[in-house]
């Protein structure tokens, strides 16, 4: 028996060896190495020079960095609340009236497109000369808007593109969550004379909390790392108006070749996202559900 146990353990280690290697080389070691790189000055041509905490000191005094931080925060604010409310609204409508696979399939389409493609589609539709959106606005008697061309509108416009991409997918996740709520609860509420509105607040929303928590936490974390749509539309401009954190890290590390400084900012973002996730876990009291 003991021999068989040992053979089984050996087999198990052989089976996990490949993925253990992948995990070590591309997840665990890099996560630590990123911190090590952040303590150096390094352009990848000459050897890395240890500089201690200098990159972090630089970061604290870097106005562009703090601007990027602020912009990213605003971006998340433009993006997440609206996206979540629209998605929840869509999910409830599908659940109550039209959950057909065709509608769900259509709504999920933007999510299946590469974010780069989503950026290009809207870049073209919002083009100031040939764009259909301004043509439409003028046709209904509204003034044309600069959208990506203006410092005031560029960031909300990028947020709008991403809402377009993710609202259907997020709606589908909410929809799947709604399927787990027993119909009997609605019947009981209805017997008590509750209307649609009251049922939504008293039954749907409380029971959907675990799904809402998952959806909001993952989309906030994704939103803090927005990159692709900016890379093909504004590249951080006009002026600094869309220079979000990941774009700034990209510029510093891969255009200026300041690997140490880029790594310091990535570490900062890691810590920031950790805190954001923890706060949200607390807010949503995840792990407990009214259904259980």
């Amino acid at each position, binding site marked *: 028996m003991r021999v068989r146990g040992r053979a089984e353990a050996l087999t198990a280690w052989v089976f996990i060896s490949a993925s253990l290697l992948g995990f070590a080389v591309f997840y665990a070691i890099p996560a630590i190495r990123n911190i090590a790189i952040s303590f150096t000055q390094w352009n990848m041509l000459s050897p890395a020079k240890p500089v201690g905490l200098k990159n972090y000191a630089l970061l604290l005094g870097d106005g562009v960095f703090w601007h990027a931080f602020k912009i990213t925060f605003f971006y998340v604010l433009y993006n997440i609340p609206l996206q979540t409310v629209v998605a929840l609204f869509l999910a409830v409508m599908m*659940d109550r009236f*039209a959950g057909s696979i065709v509608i769900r399939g259509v709504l999920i389409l933007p999510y299946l497109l590469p974010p*780069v493609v989503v950026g*290009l589609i809207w870049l073209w539709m919002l083009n100031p000369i040939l764009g259909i959106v301004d043509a439409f606005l003028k046709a209904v008697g509204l003034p044309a808007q600069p959208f990506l061309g203006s410092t005031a509108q560029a960031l909300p416009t990028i947020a709008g593109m991403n809402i377009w991409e993710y609202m259907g997918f997020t709606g589908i*996740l909410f929809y799947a969550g709604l399927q787990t709520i027993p119909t009997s609860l609605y019947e009981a509420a209805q017997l008590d004379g509750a209307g649609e509105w009251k049922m939504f607040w008293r039954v749907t929303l409380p029971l959907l909390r675990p799904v809402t928590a998952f959806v909001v936490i993952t989309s906030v974390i994704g939103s803090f790392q927005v990159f692709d749509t900016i890379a093909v539309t504004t590249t951080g401009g006009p002026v600094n108006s869309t220079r979000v954190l990941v774009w700034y890290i990209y510029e510093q590390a891969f255009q200026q070749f300041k690997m140490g400084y880029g790594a310091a900012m990535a570490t900062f973002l890691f810590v920031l996202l950790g805190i954001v996730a923890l706060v949200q876990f607390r807010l949503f009291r995840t792990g407990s559900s009214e259904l259980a």
Partner: protein
Amino acid sequence: MAETIDIESRYAERSPRSISAGRVIVWIILLFVIVLTLFPVWWVIRTALSSSNLLFNDPKSLLPIGPTMQNFARVLGLMSVNQAIAAGGSGTTFNFLVALRNSFIVTGCILVGQLFFSALAAYAFARLRFRGRETVFFIFVTGLMVPGVVTLIPNFVLIHGLGWLNTFPGLIAPYFLMTPFAVFFLRQFMLGLPFELEEAAILDGASRFAIFIKVIIPLSQTALLTLAIVTFFQSWNNFLWPFLIGRSESVRVLTAALAIFQTQTPQGAPDWTGLMAGTALSMVPSILFLVFAGRRVVESLQFSGLK
């Protein structure tokens, strides 16, 4: 269709006034959202099918202006450079056919490797007994919480050091052996599989690997298919990594090719019809998947979020 009917009937009895004003409003809103979702996709196709030189004539036309397949021929490299410029091209020789091939190579390799190695590890975590199993699995799961931007610089440095910049191995390696999500997802599924078939195979003297191939993989088909769909789209849509690692044309995937095409406009004005033809090409797999396996895709993604 049985499931759809089920879902719709969930509330059939709930409201006796089934064609109420509220219902009409809901349908109008849903219709609006569907148009909002589909119109931009149509706009890409409409532009890709329009003649470049005529685009200015009627920017509001809902149908292709001077319908033509030239844009596709141009971006697929089926025309000479001079012909392409005459047809409104930017003069950059761009070959989306190669990019399309590269996207398939990269995504195909990642799919095969990631699914196989993750399933093998998941089987060990779910079924085999060994010391440290829970600890190693827990460490894997913490990997789910590491944001991509944290590993970006060190992974780039590693691939650069290996001399794998602008190679397929460089593009594929980080996703080839595992992702924490893949292992986690498959292990959760395999925990729920019945033991009987496995035990019978052990009594027959089958090796663990034979059991994995002949029993576990067939039993895990649904989970593997779900993961395959999720992984396919992650890989096909991925941008930042291939943009950093695979810029040279021989290995450039579609997303990187589109971004680079967008920035290279030697003729001055952007080549919108060409860009939209390239964009349309990169949408093809998503649309095909939805048309031919829509239910599967929707349910896979629905499921991936709830695990």
